[in-house]
Each structure stands twice: as C-alpha cells, then as structure tokens.
C-alpha cells in the first residue's frame, strides 16, 4: 500500500491565484482530514470528511473548499490565494474501529503565496 499520497510536494502561488491540493489514500479509510501547519506551530484542522459525499468544517476553514466524491480522494481547493495561506498542508486518513482509531498522514505539500 502507498498509504496517503499528496501532490504536489511544493508549490509557489501568486496572490489571487487558485489551486487544488490532491490527496489520495489506498487503505479504504472512511475518514479523511486536511490540516495546515505554520512554521514552528502545531497542526490545525481545516476540513474533514467521514465518507464519500460528506464533508464538514474544522477549526480554520475560511479560504478553502473540499469535496469527497470517492472514498480514495479528498482534494483541497484554494480559490483566491493569500499570503496568510503560506503553510505546509497535510492530508490524513483513518478507519474508525471500536478499539482504536489512528490517523495516517501524507508527506505534506509546502505552499508559498507571494
């Protein structure tokens, strides 16, 4: 299994541009998450999904959109990039089990908005 994969690894955007961060998992997990991590800080939840067709906001959803058309994919959309969105973005997934629930993280996408 590849686990959680994210593309691209790096990206530089100009203010006002749009882009989609891709996230795919091959573990048949029902839960998927998007986090952002600013330099020297912890992770903040942007959006999450409990299954295909179901998404909900996390702690910092403003400026982002998501969709979940399949179990495997959970893309994150930035419509009008702003310097405040410069961060490292991590996608994660998990499969809820009665005794334990573990999030598996992707390698991250480093985004710079200039």
């Amino acid at each position: 299994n590849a686990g959680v994969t994210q593309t691209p690894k790096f990206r530089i955007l100009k203010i006002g541009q749009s882009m989609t961060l891709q996230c795919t998992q091959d573990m048949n997990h029902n839960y998927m998450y998007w986090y952002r991590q600013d330099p020297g800080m912890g992770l903040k939840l942007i959006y999450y999904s409990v299954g295909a067709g179901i998404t909900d906001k996390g702690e910092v959803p403003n400026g982002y959109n998501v969709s979940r058309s399949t179990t495997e994919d959970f893309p994150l959309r930035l419509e009008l990039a702003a310097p405040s969105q410069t961060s490292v973005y991590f996608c994660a997934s998990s499969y809820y089990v009665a005794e334990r629930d573990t999030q598996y993280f992707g390698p991250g996408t480093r985004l710079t908005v200039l």
Partner: protein
Amino acid sequence: LAKTTQPISMDSYEGQEVNITCSHNNIATNDYITWYQQFPSQGPRFIIQGYKTKVTNEVASLFIPADRKSSTLSLPRVSLSDTAVYYCLVGDRNYGQNFVFGPGTRLSVLP
C-alpha cells in the same frame, strides 16, 4: 474543544527515559488521548492512544490518572533518532472535528 498544554521543549541524553506530560483539564467523557511523533518535513506518525490507566506498546507507554486531566508519554531509553516533536491529541474518535493538536513538545536527544 478540549485544549491541551505541553512543555515547549525538553532535552535528554541517549539511553535515558523521557516523560512528557500533557494537560487537558477540559477533557470530555468520550475523549481519547493520542500521541503523535513528527520529524522535520514529515507528517505526524501515531505513537500510542489511551482512555484511562496505562497503555503500553513496543514504542512507548501512556499513563493516564483517574481524573484524566493529564497524561504522560513515556519513552524508554531514547536514542538520537527519537529527536522530534511530540503532539498530544485529545478528541472524540467519533467526530473528526473535535481533534485538536496541542502545541507539541520539541524533544532533543543529545549524545
């Protein structure tokens, strides 16, 4: 949302046992406590999870007192490769929006 508090940083030497404590005074009845490890330029990696008392796996132990207002991650005999940031996560597994990462503890293991 249950907020957590951890020491910002800790130093240790190789071979020592390291204990990192996380405070979560507002933990809810259904909340579990999960610890993750993160190396530079990588995503976090699950270490251990527990609800109460003590949990042990091949990597670490997790101690949770009866009032569950804090938890302690114990790493036995650390090595240089254990240098990383450790996050305490408190949230109900049934609802993803309640997962809140703490600020993390930067552990430096010295030779």
